[in-house]
């Protein structure tokens, strides 16, 4: 067991928030431009390449606008379970390759020493491949990835089993206060927008493999692909990789736009959700819809959030809730900007008899920050850390591909990282105050409190 002083990167959503925040902060010192090559293939796929010969490794990420936000409401979870099922088998290839079931696929990846994964987030379905650059291995890994991407079988018998497994896992999650709180917060904050849809046993029951195939045909098409490639390949090799990886996907010659998704509605009034739960800690979320990634306030909001609750051990929330009062192990705030307005949230967990005090303190910190903005000293400290620490965001191929994929996905300019420092430096305390006032309304937030009634019986050791 490894214990760590800081909050763990625990729940998926929280981790995701952190990742997005980190990507948002990615900038580049003037002397260290990251040369991103970008071009479009004949089939419409967009390529973003950083060629780096430092290590004999190649990373590829292929993203599609096929996240859970495009799930039909009554089939919530479709994107996620489809990405699981993609890896459960490929049909016989058009060039005579034999069909591979899930076990044969797992063995094939292991034999190549390669790592391959498919996942779905709110916005995207992502295929990631990491391979050694040795052409004998890389060529085979790319060819295998092409088959998984282009020729999945979605076997029905395996889906029956996966559905049972996922249903059991949902029931297990319902016994955990952290899961219950996260679900309640999403449902309350997104007001019917698909970001708030919850996968349940009922929605899983309405998903069949025909729905997976139909969705796949609509959304996983080469003309909508964005490929980020980092590592020991030339531009020509990268183009070859991209062509092969998408080569088995059927798709239209040209893409028509996907249906627009209505924006996340603003909250009309504050909401309190209290769920009684017998647990050692009460879990709390406070928040509201945030902003889409394209919002011009992004820089000011990210810088401000570092000061409020994003900056590890030095944020206002950590100082007031943890350091001064010892009320929690982990308290944080964060935005989750995506194609749509992902939620802003403050989260923490504490002994039930302290929950009311902790909620009060967190709300006061938040309201004061929104009303007054940061001090000059706080702004300087935030810039020192974020701008000064910029090289840490690019010092591995893993981090590089995260940044490249972020630029690709959000249609950011290719010199985004080159201009980032200047744009961060230009943010003033007044900018932060104004941006927070535009985005956050502390008197109209969702508060979710999942835990036992402290009047009934105090939990914990005291």
């Amino acid at each position, binding site marked *: *067991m490894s214990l760590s*002083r800081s909050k763990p990167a625990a729940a998926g959503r929280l981790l995701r928030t952190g990742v997005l925040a980190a990507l948002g902060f990615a900038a580049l010192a003037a002397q260290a431009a990251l040369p991103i090559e970008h071009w479009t293939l004949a089939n419409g796929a967009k390529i973003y390449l950083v060629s780096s010969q430092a290590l004999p490794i190649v990373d590829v990420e292929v993203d599609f606008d096929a996240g859970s936000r495009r799930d039909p409401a009554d089939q919530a979870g479709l994107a996620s379970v489809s990405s699981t099922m993609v890896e459960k088998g490929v049909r016989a290839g058009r060039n005579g390759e034999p069909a591979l079931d899930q076990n044969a696929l797992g063995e094939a990846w292991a034999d190549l020493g390669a790592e391959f994964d498919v996942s779905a987030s709110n916005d995207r379905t992502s295929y990631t491949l990491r391979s050694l650059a040795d052409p004998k291995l890389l060529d085979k890994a790319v060819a295998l990835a092409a088959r998984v991407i282009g020729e999945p079988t979605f076997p029905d018998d395996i889906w029956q089993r996966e559905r049972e497994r996922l249903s059991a896992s949902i029931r297990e999650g319902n016994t955990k206060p952290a899961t219950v709180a996260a679900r309640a917060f999403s449902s309350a904050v997104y007001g019917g927008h698909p970001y708030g849809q919850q996968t349940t046993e009922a929605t899983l029951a309405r998903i069949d493999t025909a729905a997976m195939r139909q969705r796949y045909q609509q959304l996983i098409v080469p003309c909508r692909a964005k490929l980020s490639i980092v590592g020991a390949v030339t531009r020509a090799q990268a183009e070859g990789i991209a062509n092969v990886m998408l080569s088995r996907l059927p798709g239209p010659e040209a893409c028509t736009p996907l249906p627009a998704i209505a924006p996340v509605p603003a909250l009309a009034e504050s909401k309190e959700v209290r769920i009684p739960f017998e647990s050692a800690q009460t879990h709390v979320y406070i928040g509201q819809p945030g902003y889409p990634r394209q919002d011009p306030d992004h820089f000011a909001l990210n810088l401000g959030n570092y000061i409020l609750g994003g900056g590890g051990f030095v944020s206002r929330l950590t100082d007031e809730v943890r350091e001064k009062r010892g009320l929690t192990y982990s308290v944080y705030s964060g935005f989750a900007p995506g194609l749509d307005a992902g939620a802003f949230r403050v989260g923490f967990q504490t002994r039930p008899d302290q929950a009311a005090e902790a909620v009060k303190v967190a709300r006061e910190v938040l309201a004061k920050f929104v009303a007054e903005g940061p001090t000059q000293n706080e702004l300087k400290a935030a810039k020192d850390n974020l701008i000064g620490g910029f090289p840490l965001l690019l010092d591995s191929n893993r981090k590089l591909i995260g940044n490249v994929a972020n630029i690709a996905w959000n249609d950011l300019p290719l010199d985004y990282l080159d201009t980032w420092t200047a744009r961060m430096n230009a943010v003033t305390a007044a900018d932060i105050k104004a941006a927070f006032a535009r985005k956050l309304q502390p008197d109209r937030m969702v508060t979710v409190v999942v835990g036992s009634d402290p009047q009934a019986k105090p939990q914990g050791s005291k």
Partner: protein
Amino acid sequence: MKHPSPRRAASGAVLALAFAAPWGLPAQAQQPSPPATPSTVSTASAPGPRQFTLSNGMTLIVQPDRRSPTAVQMVWVRVGSLDEVDGTSGVAHALEHMMFKGTKSIKPGEFSRRVAALGGQENAFTTRDYTGYYQQIPVGSLEQVMKLESDRFANNQWPDDEFKREIEVVKEERRMRTEDQPRALLGEQQSAAVFIASPYHRPVVGWMSDLDAMTPEDVREFHRRWYVPANAAIVIAGDVDVDKVRALAEKYYGGIPARAVPVRKPRIEPPQRGIRRIEFKAPAEQAYVSLAFRIPQLESIDAESDAWALEVLSAVLDGYTGSRLDRALTQGPERVADSAGAYSGLIGRGPQLFGLAGVPAAGKTAAQVEAALRAQVARIAREGVGEAELARVKTQWVASETYKRDSVMAQARELGSNWVQGLPLDADPRMIAKLQAVTAAQVQAVAAKYFGDDQLTVATLVPLPPDARPRARGFAAPAGELR
């Protein structure tokens, strides 16, 4: 996809299982062998790490990696919950928290503010075997963080009031990680059942009553006792010059007065002579069963040991998607488990275990999962393993040696955890070579040798159904120490 690593033991990496091995990190028990001064290892394409001993006995390990203008500083102290005694469990971890609370010259909170101002990211961690502190920084800030870190190693100091609040934070950490996590509670109870004399008996975070009773002086005394130069290593990796780092280390760390490392009493685990079983009831939907078999502790890389073949066995069982446990337990309409995993403790300061664990599928019982897990080991004992699967897990290990070079943090972590275990700088390639040399016959032999009843402890999580918990989620009657 699963990605096994032979380093998951010594590196402290989280297991590639749906469930962590409940007994925590493996490690090694004997005093480490003295390091060569200096020694060096290189690989084909990158300069290898170098190791020095400072004038006061502290170890310095430097790994240049010039790809980016960043560096990581880690300080590893060879002290963890293994070195604690009854009544003050959790003190190693509590000290780790208090190390952020100041020195003679740095006020509480100031350490983190300064690291942040340098553009750095930082944290610390405590396990059974060691305590570690780190900062990731733009390389230009390396000297400042060396100055800060050496100061708190030598001069950690804080008022009692800081401790009073921070120990409450630690209790919240325990509630979050353990008390509301039925499988973590089960793991804690399983460790307590497996280990009697070994300090691995106690949880790293400490029993709640020990946290309640802990005093500021308990923590200060632990720092005075264990934070001595000869019990620590500085690991620095990144865009650095070895000679300059060595000079800085002498300047900031070398002056810390040398003191003797306390004598460690062996606290040898008495022989187990018969199966042990525990059950633990907690509010959960799914049952869970964890089997822990005693296995030999690796004495050194060069010594002949069954530990290598056991590591290969765990990878054959659970090292990749479609490996044996997946196929046999989690697939098909009659599958017995929703998930299943295996784990082998390779290296550690204390006694080691081989673990098998699983979550029963709907309608199946923990007993069925237990039987199915053991049947897979028995099958290997009977029939052996195929050359293809053996080659497969070895291929993955070789590939992982290249992938880990992508992260300076991962490199520093590996060097530090190897030092903790008394392993040489080139431990990793040598361990890969050892694993490469394992034969199918050896895997079959260890499967036949270590998996009988007498060395086994079975821990079963018994879910409390909703109607058996009048309070929606109350712990009916947990063991005394837990509350």
